[in-house]
């Protein structure tokens, strides 16, 4: 901590231990004072008030002779928690140190100190403090997992493993402990153990997608290249951390718009829509012009089913800040769902003006343009989406579908030929569909379509692939087989409770019943 600490200047809050005299006579109990507050002028008034109130409370406890050391410790600790939450780590550290000196048995103070050290990058100090917590509470799950995590980060997996193992004996279902144990096994070269532990993490919580990356590495080390590739593909950024009651409480401590927003987001993650809305409203009470909070509230209201209020909040958000593109996008989505495509186009366009790389907005814009019959504009948007996010197959599929709407079947075929050559079966399927149904006879090729479908059937079967299969059979004049297959598909759609698909299947069955082939590659409801 040479850098930050050396130049950090005055510590904001400290306990000053004042020796009353320097003679060798028995020293009186040291007096403890609260140091002046650090500079809090840049904090929002509500947080300033919280801090000054707690500071006054602390001073009152210190001057009250009846206050016990434990109460004083708590008063110091509570103020330090506010400092920590307000990202004033040095003032917080001083406060927690004093709290700890007044009540050495309270595990909370070294726990918070450990997190301060961890976030400042002083991992050896953090490890020592987590160990201190564990001396007071040997079964503290959070401290065990964090201690293991810190040891992993400093390259000591052999020291990390016992912490995770101990945590797992206390709670075998702890995802964070198991994840840590898996990473420790990986780091020590015990790949089989790593695979077992990390696969169990994903079984316990499939949302723990961060586990895919170390799992991929463990599989690779074992020579399981296919599994490795699959887990690499599934890997997403994310954190797998212990429940951490103390830190969650601390993160919720400040009465600031940002804190209420954070809490609200956590509520959304927990699917507590009402709780989320409540937090966002608290934030808006402090910051009524905050577009992000209006947007979040609108999202929560929408999830609660209150579409009218939701839409109003989205509109307020973009009034407060027209550059706040998430609200522009969300409002566009609502308008699009209502079939108000012209207005939706305006919203998506506004979002893209701010964030041109927002692929989801561009795809939605293209879709609304297509539905408005502005096909060339839609084609251009899909084209831009393809260039910007080549991994998004929807962009290329949308592009092809608009080409078919423009009767540019040859262009559609060439686009799909190229895309299918790269191996993505979505495009192979689309190509088979086009070859079976294109109104342009020079584009149709029933035999090639059949060959493609047979390849795909080896990999698996979906209702839509079956639908294309039936179209191909009809194109080849095998109407009886097409009818039979179509009836199977209708039954499957019934079982799966897919009425829209059923309706489409029935309409196409009527064609086959009349010995007519299908000449509509995709209906509007199949298009993005």
């Amino acid at each position, binding site marked *: 901590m040479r850098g930050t600490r050396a130049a950090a200047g005055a510590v904001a809050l400290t306990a000053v231990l004042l020796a009353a005299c320097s003679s060798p006579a028995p020293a009186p109990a040291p007096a403890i004072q609260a140091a002046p507050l650090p500079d809090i002028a840049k904090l929002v008034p509500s947080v300033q008030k919280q801090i000054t109130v707690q500071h006054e409370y602390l001073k009152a406890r210190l001057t009250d002779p009846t206050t016990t050391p434990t109460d004083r410790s708590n008063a110091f600790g509570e103020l330090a928690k506010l400092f920590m939450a307000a990202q004033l780590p040095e003032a917080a550290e001083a406060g927690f140190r004093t709290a700890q000196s007044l009540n050495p048995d309270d595990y909370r103070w070294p726990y918070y100190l450990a997190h301060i050290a961890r976030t400042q990058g002083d991992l050896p100090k953090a490890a020592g403090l987590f160990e201190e917590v564990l001396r007071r509470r040997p079964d503290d799950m959070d401290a065990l997992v964090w201690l293991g995590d810190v040891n992993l*980060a400093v390259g000591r997996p052999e020291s990390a493993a016992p912490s995770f193992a101990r945590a797992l004996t206390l709670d075998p279902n702890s995802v964070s402990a198991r994840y840590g144990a898996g990473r420790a096994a990986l780091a020590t070269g015990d790949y089989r153990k790593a695979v077992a532990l990390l696969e169990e993490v994903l079984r316990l919580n499939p949302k723990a997608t961060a586990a895919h990356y170390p799992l991929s590495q463990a599989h690779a080390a074992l020579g399981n290249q296919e599994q490795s590739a699959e887990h690499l593909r599934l890997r997403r950024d994310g954190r797998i951390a212990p429940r951490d009651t103390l830190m969650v409480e601390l993160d919720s401590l400040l009465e600031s718009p940002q804190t209420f927003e954070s809490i609200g987001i956590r509520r959304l993650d927990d699917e507590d829509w009402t709780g989320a809305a409540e937090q966002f409203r608290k934030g808006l009470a402090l910051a009524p012009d905050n577009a992000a909070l209006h947007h979040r509230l609108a999202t929560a209201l929408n999830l609660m089913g209150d579409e009218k209020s939701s839409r109003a909040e989205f509109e307020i958000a973009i009034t407060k800040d027209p550059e706040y593109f998430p609200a522009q996008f969300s409002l566009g989505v609502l308008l699009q769902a209502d079939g108000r495509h012209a207005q939706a186009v305006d919203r998506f366009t506004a979002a893209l003006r701010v964030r041109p790389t927002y692929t989801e907005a561009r795809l939605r814009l293209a879709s609304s343009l297509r539905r408005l019959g502005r096909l060339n504009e839609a084609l251009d948007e899909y084209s831009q989406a393809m260039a910007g996010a080549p991994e998004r197959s929807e962009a290329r599929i949308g592009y092809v579908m608009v080409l078919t709407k423009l009767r540019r079947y040859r262009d559609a075929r060439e686009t799909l030929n190229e895309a299918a050559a790269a191996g993505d079966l979505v495009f192979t399927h689309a190509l088979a569909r086009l070859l079976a149904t294109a109104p342009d006879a020079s584009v149709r090729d029933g035999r090639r379509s059949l060959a493609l479908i047979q390849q795909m059937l080896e990999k698996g079967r979906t209702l*839509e692939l079956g639908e294309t299969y039936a179209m191909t059979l009809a194109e080849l004049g095998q109407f009886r087989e097409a009818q039979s297959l179509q009836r199977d598909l209708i039954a499957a759609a019934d079982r799966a409770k897919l009425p829209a698909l059923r309706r489409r299947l029935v309409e196409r069955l009527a064609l086959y019943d009349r010995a007519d082939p299908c000449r509509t590659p995709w209906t509007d409801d199949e298009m993005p």
Partner: protein
Amino acid sequence: MRFADAHRAPLWHHVSHGARGWCLGLTLSLAACAGGDAAPPTVVDTPSGPPADPSVEWFTDEAQASGIDFIHVNGAAGQFYYPEILPPGVALFDMDNDGDLDVYLVQGHPLGTPNANPELRGRLYRNDLEVRPDGSRSLRFVDVTAQSGIEAVAYGLGVAAGDVDNDGFVDLYLMHLGGNQLYRNRGGGRFVDITATSGTANQPGFAVSAAFLDYDRDGALDLYVGNNVNYRGLDKESICPNPAGARDYCPPQIYGGIRDRLYHNEGDGRFTDVSATALVGLRPAPALGVSTADFDGDGWIDIYVADDGADNLLWMNQRNGTFRESALTSGAAITAEGKAEASMGVDAGDYDNDGDEDLVMTELTSQGFNLFVNDGAARFRDQGAVSGLGPASMPYTGWGTAWFDYDNDGWLDTFSANGTIITLEGHDRAAFPYDQTRLLFRNLGNGRFEDVTARAGASFALSESGRGAAFGDVDNDGDVDILVGNDAGRARLLINHVGNRQHWLGLRLVGGPGDRDQLGARVGVTRSDGTVLWRRVRADGSYASASDPRVLVGLGGTNAVSAVDVWWPDGGREHWPTVPVDTWTTLQKGSAK
């Protein structure tokens, strides 16, 4: 149901495959990526380290004394404009071919108003190094900006250097807010702005780092520009308060990404943006550092991009004018834990002397610097934690960095210029409260590093907002010096006083029509004890900066070399049976006996 969603539909005949089943996935070869299974680095000798003479400061700051009286102005005045947090880059390059390194320093100015101060512009300093017959020397820099033709009055971010027209004079690519500039060096310390005719303005774009490389072996240096964010202008700046409502600089994710650019040098003064066709699968990402090297040993130069808070990129040269992005499958995108970190500076170098290019990256506070160790086939293992580099650097936010052998012991060490991006408590009355001290790590030759900052001298105890760093032998005395750019602070020239106490080999590798520096060439130096050290000609890497393209090889305990092998970037190879040590030598392509 939409057609594109069809493969996520309930299943016909109840056979589950779903969308994932359709994807063919990636062919991986990650056997060495998982950590813990590779052989330890080959140890060929024991590093002896610099002499333990406490009276000698390893590095001293000689900037002002030598005439570089430069203070960077970032214009920060409480508006928290994102560009303020990124500069400045710095460059060491020999603009006049007089054999010593000149200096270019990126400058800013107050944002939100036009630059009213003509003095606030990028500065060019000529090195008038004097070496006397007894070997003593004196450094003197002269500000030659006014007569240079360089008009860098826009808000500067970074700089890259390379001879784009093969005339033997190193040209400068300056990265600015609002558009980059390419200055052709006409010789004699005169430059001319060829941005418009070359087509290299990088607009729309926002770049701090770029690299020159000849990726298609046509003999002309192409240009990779790493773009950071989609910065839409000062009037559209975002506001990013912390949980207590105190405002600070926003992270790059707030602004959205923008794609990097690859410019192909057409050889006639024009560059063509080939990003769409050459960088297959290019996506917007917040690039900060760029380093080019041949990571898989196939003789073709690849590109590594350090991204801020997103997966880093590894563009593998496909030898047909295109690249394939393969950082994730190569183990070089994210940490062993699976996290994308905030990578800032980066460099490639053979830190373990096993003949391939390893990567070092500087990161955000509490993340720790990364060390990605190459197995020779561009498969990497994250060894940041076990090397000691990660844990020791965790309190720091690092920027400019490099592999360089400061003590000439034959092992590449590393340095970082540091400074936070979050206001430091207790510093908030400072003009720019983001300062940290620098770091120097010594390579112990066993895969581990020792933090030797405390022994490096008083200049390492200065707390400043370090950003760019360029590396090179500024006084031509046989060891690597460091030029550091500080955000809203004074430029520092850290002169090395200990490296040349061990023997060294200094090489300049030139070739082609103008005898330009052969960026990307690899040189294998066989020492008298039979061990071989592989180094590379490069001016890129670090952060926003350009370094000395010459190769300085510390020889450690040996005092002679028995061979020098050069692998030129066009695929040609040459062998020199002997090259003198403890002096600088130019090896010209095609001149080996």
